[in-house]
């Protein structure tokens, strides 16, 4: 039928009519059935103009008051003339209906007492070049099925009759056409660029709305049944009442939270704990309840310029989806004109980079603890379907208890201004860059938890191989296959783990160099450049593990899953399942819940971006270019769907 429809469409040739499959209304159709594709020849206005007349005629025929179409169908005395209606109402009797319809076409003399109808046919007949005469239905209302066939002959154009004219038996028109206007060709281009842009927003927002709502409803039902379970477990009326009241309040506060727009003014900044090209991370306290969070604010224009939007979105998605103890928790996201905000849990222990700077090297036991935890964390991210691609000490945070959580606080320190995605392409072409300041990595990809296409992940799950082509990450810890652009897979994160482990035990990352260009070259030539210094004694198992991670992807440990690492002899005796519950080797000593001892806050300029931006705007508006914002920030296309609200935000 599809083919037929297409062919028919091609035959028409006179217009661009296109019908989606869903627009077809016939439940079952013989292959020759014409699709309701036409209208080209008859201006809609003409059809409209016919209405009164057609209507009048029907009145004259003593038809029931009401709208013309139904009257036409049901009151016509000649059954042959409305095969279409019969067809639609008696699907079981198709065959005979077809034939009677056919007869109707062939034999009924011009029952057409409406000259306009004939005229309309004439128009479309001309348009159709005579090839498909039966396809002239004129969606316009004036034509009632009772008046079929509207043969051209009635107007003096000699058509010898459908039966002889066509090989296929004539078919009734889809009845829909007689009641409804004919299908309309979609023409988005008749509207301006703004409308088409708004179209995208509107479509995206609507589908996001339903996606979010369905997810929330599902979770709500889940909580509901959990509550009912709890209620059934006790008969104590007080207990039951309290379960019920707590449940209702929690749901109620979540609803309230959903309809409340969050804004940065709801928070007091305590300290800026990280800064980068795209934004900053602040320790904040919510004014309303005194709760402490890490608030990351990203500068929209920078994200936009640097093409980071997909990455922001991916990060928001993974953080929003994840409920893992190994991933930093995202409570809510919101935005205003200039910034995107991510409200996350504050991890007071600082990051592994700061620890490494402080201690230079770790003992093998301590290394074992952190590397084992990072194995679990990477595994958790992979289970969510994400490849981190930028595992590095800066992104490994320590919580209150000194346990590891992955994040992307890569914003912390030491960014270069070079963040283009083609940065590595420049490197490949041998262009060297400014020397890097000390150990800090280059942020190619500040938003590091990067999703690869979900369907690709499913492909990978089937084929055990995901190929994704892009170059991201920061040089020191990045696997060579990411640079070379031949595709990489989940195991690229295990390479990074190997380099971190090397650094923990040796004191510097294995491929560190004066500038990133050299680092890159070293990584690509890892077979030559991987070198364990003679003066540092590494355990055999430790060195073996590092070497089985820093190697080509085909041989890399972890390719088949994290269990390959867990069973490596370096981890002998490690109980992975209870790892997070044991005491960590370093536990942060904190004096309060807003203690930032473990963040290098003195090295960070404490003027926040919003303040700088305001100053800049004040300067520019003094120069005579007033800022104007006409759209609400949520409506700005690239940032649609960014807003996220987690249920348990209020109930930690």
């Amino acid at each position, binding site marked *: 039928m599809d083919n037929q429809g297409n062919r028919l469409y091609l035959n028409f040739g006179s217009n661009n009519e296109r019908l989606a499959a869903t627009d077809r209304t016939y439940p079952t159709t013989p292959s020759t059935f014409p699709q309701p594709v036409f209208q080209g020849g008859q201006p809609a206005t003409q059809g409209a103009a016919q209405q009164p007349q057609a209507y009048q005629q029907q009145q004259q025929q003593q038809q029931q008051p009401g709208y013309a179409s139904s009257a036409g169908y049901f009151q016509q005395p000649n059954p042959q003339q409305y095969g279409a209606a019969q067809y639609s109402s008696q699907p079981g009797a198709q065959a005979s209906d077809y034939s009677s319809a056919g007869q109707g076409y062939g034999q009924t003399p011009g029952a057409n007492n409406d000259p306009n109808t004939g005229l309309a046919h004439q128009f479309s007949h001309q348009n159709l070049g005579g090839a498909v005469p039966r396809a002239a239905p004129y969606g316009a209302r004036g034509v009632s099925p009772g008046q079929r066939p509207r043969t051209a002959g009635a107007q003096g154009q000699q058509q010898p009759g459908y039966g002889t004219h066509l090989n296929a038996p004539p078919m009734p028109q889809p009845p829909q056409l007689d009641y409804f206007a004919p299908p*309309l060709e979609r023409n988005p281009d008749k509207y301006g660029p703004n409308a088409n842009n708004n179209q995208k927003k*509107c479509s995206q927002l609507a589908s996001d709305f339903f996606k979010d709502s369905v997810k929330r409803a599902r979770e709500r039902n889940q909580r509901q049944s959990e509550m009912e379970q709890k209620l059934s477990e006790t008969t104590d009326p007080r207990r039951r009442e309290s379960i019920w009241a707590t449940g209702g309040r929690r749901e109620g506060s979540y609803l309230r939270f*959903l309809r409340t727009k969050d804004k940065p003014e709801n928070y007091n900044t305590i300290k800026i704990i990280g800064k980068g090209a795209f934004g900053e991370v602040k320790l904040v306290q919510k004014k309303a309840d005194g709760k402490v969070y890490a608030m990351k604010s990203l500068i929209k224009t920078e994200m936009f310029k640097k093409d980071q939007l997909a990455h922001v979105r991916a990060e928001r998605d993974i953080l929003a989806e994840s409920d893992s103890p190994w991933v930093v928790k995202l409570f809510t996201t919101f935005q205003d004109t200039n910034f995107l905000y991510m409200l996350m849990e504050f991890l007071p222990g600082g990051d592994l980079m700061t620890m490494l700077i402080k201690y230079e090297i770790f003992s093998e036991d301590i290394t074992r603890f952190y590397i084992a935890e990072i194995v679990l964390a990477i595994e958790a991210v992979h289970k969510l379907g994400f490849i981190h691609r930028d595992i590095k000490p800066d992104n490994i945070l320590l919580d209150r208890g000194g346990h590891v959580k992955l994040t992307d606080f890569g914003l912390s320190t030491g960014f270069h201004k070079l963040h283009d995605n083609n940065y590595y392409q420049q490197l490949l072409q041998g262009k060297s860059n400014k020397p890097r300041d000390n150990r800090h990595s280059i942020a190619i990809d500040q938003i590091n938890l990067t999703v690869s296409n979900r369907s690709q992940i499913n492909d990978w799950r089937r084929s055990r191989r995901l190929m994704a082509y892009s170059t991201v990450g920061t040089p020191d810890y990045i696997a060579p296959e990411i640079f070379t652009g031949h595709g990489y897979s989940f195991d690229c994160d295990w390479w990074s783990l190997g380099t971190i482990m090397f650094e923990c035990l040796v004191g510097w990352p294995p491929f560190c160099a004066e500038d990133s260009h050299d680092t890159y070259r070293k990584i690509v030539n890892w077979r030559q450049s991987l070198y364990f210094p003679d003066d540092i004694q590494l355990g055999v198992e430790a060195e073996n593990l590092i070497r089985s991670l820093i190697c080509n992807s085909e041989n890399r440990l972890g390719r088949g899953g994290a269990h390959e690492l867990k069973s490596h002899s370096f981890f002998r005796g490690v109980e992975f399942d209870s790892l997070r519950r044991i005491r960590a080797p370093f536990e942060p000593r904190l004096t309060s819940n807003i203690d930032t001892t473990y963040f290098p806050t003195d090295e960070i300029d404490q003027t926040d971006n919003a303040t700088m931006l305001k100053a800049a705007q004040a300067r520019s508006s003094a120069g005579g270019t007033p800022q104007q914002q006409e759209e609400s920030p949520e409506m700005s296309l690239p940032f649609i769907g960014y807003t996220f609200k987690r249920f348990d935000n209020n109930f930690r």
Partner: protein
Amino acid sequence: MSNLFSGINARLRGTSSKQGSGKSPVSPTSEDGHLSSPGGFARRSKSSSNLSSKLPPLPASPSLAQAITLTSTGDDILNSYRLPQPLPMWLNPAYAKHIVKGNFMTLSSRPKSVDQGEWMAHHVVEHYRNLWNFVHVVHSKEADGKTICNSTTCPRMSAGPNHSYTWLNKTNNRYEPTELAAIDYISMMQRWISGKIEDTNMFPTDPSGVSFSHNPSIANVALLSSPDEWVGKRSGFPKDFASICQTIFLQMFRVYAHLYWAHFAEPLYHLNLEKQLNSCFSHFVLTATALDMLKPKELEPMQPLIDLWAANGTFPPESKAYEYANLKAGTRLLQMAGMA
């Protein structure tokens, strides 16, 4: 100048179904000084089309459909709606489809423990956000400064030939129904609604004020029988909260009705947004009726689509919207399209 929505409220509606008096009985009970609630609408039976002038006398109101006897056919009911011919595009079942599958009621049935006021507030805000995504499409300016819905295309706030709405302007302490272009009407309404939603006295946001819905089988509390109780009281919603919500839903309904009658093809269909509109609107109708925020009569301009959605399974049989629908009319529409 102060403005308020025109029209008559639900109680008065029945008495003014005759020829469209632009003057709508109003009960300006507002204390906020600029708008009163609830709004209503002015029916416009006077039709400008030749077609209807040639019609024999028709039932005074399409709402008679509700009263139509068991013997009346789907066609009878559809006739009583006095729809233009050909039928509006959005009544074509081929264009009444959705971007969502499944039972919409999962989204609108209140969790038993949640306070009714909180649930209403939640849906007011959600539907308001949804609806304005579509309004944005027809109201935002192209480079030439033109909007798709403008005072030329839509000189009145109309929903088809049979319904149009006037705005009440307050001059000299009297409310005068004023005919406004749809764009102006909608903009003023938008301002009014967002004023309400952003008013934390009307829509409290303090998380500590949240209460829950009492469950007699769990806790014995005498409730809601006393005259001093109202929806949402214990969660901090004001006394007139429910009636304000009702007005908001009614006004939003009018915007949807205008979008369907005036902008379904131009531009929403052309921009491939009709399924999105259908899903948002059907969710809206299901929610508003489930919350008793829209009465059957208020649904008139969109009744045939509601019938169709009841017939094609969009509205689940347990929903109020389904109850308000004329199944025969909906089934007939499906037949017309060869879908039943």
